[in-house]
């Protein structure tokens, strides 16, 4: 009889590094990583919660968002994730990130292009990057890292490396974060 494989689940693989888009100081006591999908309504609902949490616990948190597009159910999720990365390449990641979550029903290319222009992006470069899928490998790397970490739906949060199992409400997340402050 062989012994069972010793496998840990629900542990964040690939810690935050320079490849990630982050908010806060790397020296903050609590590292929060969200895996999300711009077309997922639950992520849309969690977006203002995360924004409020980052506001209320600004000095305690180092936050990163990684892409986990559920491409078989959300037809625009992959495109939206690549759009955020393309905006990020021009130094405007979070503006696009916020716009995408605030306009979840308008994630078609024409609307995203208009948003990119409003944000002040170089539209030619933005369109070229999307057409060439320049950031598809990064989005896929985020996704694979999520799978390997035990992301089990979106949004999934990791607090200091461990999958958070509670609800995505401000009260519950604040309480979970405060345990590490």
């Amino acid at each position, binding site marked *: 009889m062989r012994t069972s494989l010793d496998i840990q*689940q629900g542990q964040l693989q690939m810690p935050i590094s320079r490849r990630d888009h982050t908010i806060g100081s790397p020296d903050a006591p609590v590292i929060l990583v969200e895996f999300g999908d711009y077309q997922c309504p639950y992520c849309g609902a969690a977006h203002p919660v995360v924004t409020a949490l980052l506001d209320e616990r600004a000095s305690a948190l180092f936050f990163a968002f990684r892409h986990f597009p559920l491409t078989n159910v959300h037809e625009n999720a992959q495109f939206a994730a690549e759009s955020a990365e393309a905006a990020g390449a021009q130094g405007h990641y979070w503006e696009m990130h916020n716009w995408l979550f605030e306009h979840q029903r308008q994630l078609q290319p024409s609307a995203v292009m208009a948003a990119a222009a409003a944000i002040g992006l170089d539209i030619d470069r933005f369109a070229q990057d999307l057409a060439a899928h320049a950031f598809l490998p990064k989005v896929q790397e985020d996704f694979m890292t999520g799978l390997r970490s035990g992301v*089990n739906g979106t949004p999934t949060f990791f607090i200091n490396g461990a999958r958070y199992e509670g609800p995505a409400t401000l009260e519950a997340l604040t309480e979970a974060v405060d345990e590490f402050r």
Partner: protein
Amino acid sequence: MAAGEPAPDVELKASPTQTVRISGLHGRPVVLAFYPADFSPVCTDQLSLYQTAAPAFAKYDAQVLGISTDGVWCHQAFAQQRGLKFPLLADAWPHGAAAQAYGVLDTDDGLAARALFVLDHQGVVAWSYLSPSGVNPGADGILAALDAMTAKAVP
């Protein structure tokens, strides 16, 4: 059903006209995902996740099979709605017999528990996991088990 034991050989309907027998899949890794019921109320359920993760499983040539006590017609509608391309097996009659053979039938409600089994090329259980009620286990354990099996298989 512990690691190292041969997986019980069951034959279940995958559609109104097709059946799948576990022993017929020897030669490649098999992932059995028992789950309580089709149409869980969240948009990102375990089975949808496994479909999205299909390219990752394909790297191991692993065959993923979902198993619940729902019938074939229900499975068909569920697969269609969620875009699931891998087979969903109907453990409908005798009700829950496969789940029982694997020791994961919840006899209070007659539903399969959320349990994962990764079988090696010979149909031996390499890893199994019983998820706490209500927690979607994700795919990390499956991928780590497939990794460990692949590492072992290298001569």
